[in-house]
């Protein structure tokens, strides 16, 4: 049941004039899953969502909902309610009237409307605000109204377009758990578009990473974090150092890759068989690099680099370094560890890491 596809994007593309927003997209969204579509702005994630909602017509390909082609179904005849980034609450209606809206549009009778609305006001804990003007509510309350308004018809799918981006950090985390709980309780599909890695990774069952109208990787959060497929994903996740070079030697235990910054031992990746002379790119997470003023042990990968500066990130700091050929390297360390070292800008330090801390990108 859970693995059944609810929505299928079959070769769907969207062009605005000469601009290609989405390129030949193939994607299955399963029944009851929490799917996050992530990417930077302009990557096509919102367009994908809007095509599903019927707010944008695909230039080619087919979108199927529950096995039926919905390309030509106007948005007001689809059951794909959406929560907007701006929430798009009707300012001229009260909370109750907002929640009631789609029931009224479907011609539900008054008693049934009242029952349903009361239920959802209750469920979202906004009963006491029922007769308020939506403009006079707090951010969190407005979120709840928007959710109630979309869910009042009890659809099989809910689309969310960066609904939390306007909230402060604390409220954001609270609404994240509201959303995850809601999704689990209702058992319906959530499609959640965001540019925030933390939102996507903390809530979603599966994450789709998009770039320039194309899917870069689909997988569960751990998979993506541990084994990014492409350089883009590794860069997007932001915490990796990327080395590109050429395979100089292959043995059973390790692949030797020669890069402008030096020659390094890397753990082979089953998804990317390599032989001598192949181009290869591997990444090392910034928290798995070590820094020292003295040369490290021989069995470690190492290189010498000069300190560029330090970036303060709460409990830890990120040291930015520059290796040979101006290769940028960043290392994340606790403040305690850093105090032991001489990290004046310009100072030469050793950077080292274990071969098993590396990951070869299969998509490069």
């Amino acid at each position: 049941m859970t693995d059944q596809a609810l929505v299928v994007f079959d070769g769907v593309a969207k062009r605005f004039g000469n601009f290609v927003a989405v390129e030949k997209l193939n994607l299955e969204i399963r029944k009851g899953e929490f799917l996050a579509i992530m990417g930077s702005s302009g990557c096509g994630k919102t367009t994908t969502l809007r095509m599903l909602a019927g707010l944008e017509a695909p230039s080619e390909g087919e979108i199927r909902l529950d096995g039926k082609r919905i390309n030509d179904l106007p948005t007001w005849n689809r059951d794909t309610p959406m929560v907007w980034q701006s929430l798009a609450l009707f300012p001229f209606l009260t909370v109750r009237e907002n929640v009631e809206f789609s029931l009224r549009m479907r011609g539900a009778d008054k008693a049934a409307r009242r029952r349903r609305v009361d239920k959802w006001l209750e469920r979202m804990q906004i009963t006491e605000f029922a007769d308020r003007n939506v403009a006079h509510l707090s951010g969190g309350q407005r979120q709840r109204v928007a959710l109630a308004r979309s869910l009042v018809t009890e659809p099989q799918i809910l689309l969310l377009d960066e609904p939390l981006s306007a909230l402060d950090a604390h409220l954001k985390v609270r609404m994240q758990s509201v959303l995850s709980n809601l999704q689990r309780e209702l058992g319906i599909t959530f499609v959640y578009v965001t540019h925030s890695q933390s939102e996507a990774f903390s809530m979603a069952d599966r994450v789709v990473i998009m770039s320039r109208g194309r899917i870069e990787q689909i997988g569960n959060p751990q998979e993506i974090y541990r084994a990014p497929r492409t350089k883009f994903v590794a860069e997007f996740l932001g915490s990796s150092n990327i080395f590109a070079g050429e395979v100089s030697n292959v043995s059973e235990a390790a692949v030797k890759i020669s890069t402008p910054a030096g020659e390094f031992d890397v753990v082979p990746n089953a998804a990317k068989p390599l032989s001598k002379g192949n181009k290869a790119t591997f990444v090392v997470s910034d928290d798995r690099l070590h820094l020292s003023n003295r040369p490290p042990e021989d069995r470690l990968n190492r290189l010498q680099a000069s300190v560029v500066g330090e970036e303060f990130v709460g409990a830890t700091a990120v040291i930015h370094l520059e290796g040979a050929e101006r290769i940028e390297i960043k290392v994340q360390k606790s403040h305690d560890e850093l105090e032991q070292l001489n990290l004046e800008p310009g100072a030469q330090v050793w950077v080292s890491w274990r071969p098993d801390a590396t990951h070869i990108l299969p998509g490069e």
Partner: protein
Amino acid sequence: MRKSITFYGLTFSLPMLVWQALFFLAPLLFLIALSFWSVRNFRMEPDFNPDNWTRMLGRAVFWQAYLRTFLLSASAAVITSILAFPCAYAIAFKLSETARRWAIFLMVIPFFTSYLVRVYSWQIFLSDNGIFNALFAQVGIGPFGMLNSSFGVMIGYLTLSFPLVVLLQLFSLVFVDKTLIEAAHNLHCGRLRTVFEVIVPSAKVGLVIAALFCFILTFGDFVSPLYLGGGDPPTLSILITDTTKSGQQWPRAAVIALTMIATLLAVAFAAVSFAYRERGR
């Protein structure tokens, strides 16, 4: 930046204050005083005499004119708003950026053409042997008496206020949040229904203000009711011009003018509070 009053600052702020106080505010206040003056032997004398008020407000002719003016302007506000809305809607939502700018430019042109000339032109169209009746005769109907009727007045009022109403409506429609329209569609609200359920409520302030301006403009206009409506029965503005231009009964004209201002203030207040009324607490 907030310093005490300087010669420099006053150079720029005072002229407006002085001019409008002297030649705008003072005349309007003088109108109040004038309404209590008395006229003896065709000469006005300063006085404190409520006679003008009791006489004017006691006349059936005055109240007939009042009712007629009010009804004409109220109908003009409603009719113009209804006729202007599809036009403003189309310009706001259905035209390309360039076409919209041209449409706005064309809508502004009438403000700089003589209203009198346009009214005269309408006489040519509407008169018994005018253009419209000549066209009607071609298809074998008519002639219709369109000049010197309420229909003629309405044509004149439309000439006066239609472009302004379209522009005011347009500017409120342009600022309607597009995501609200999408949200309505997304919540099963069809195209036409969205216009009434979402677009009109969203643009309410602008739509009401547009209707209010139409009311104000037509309420004070004497040209259309006179030259397209025949002037009989008269409207309040025709009464003012007649009373002022034929002799020295200015105090009575002042009474009419002040009644009109009171009416306009009441209507404006009602319209604005209706426009800004909010749903819910």
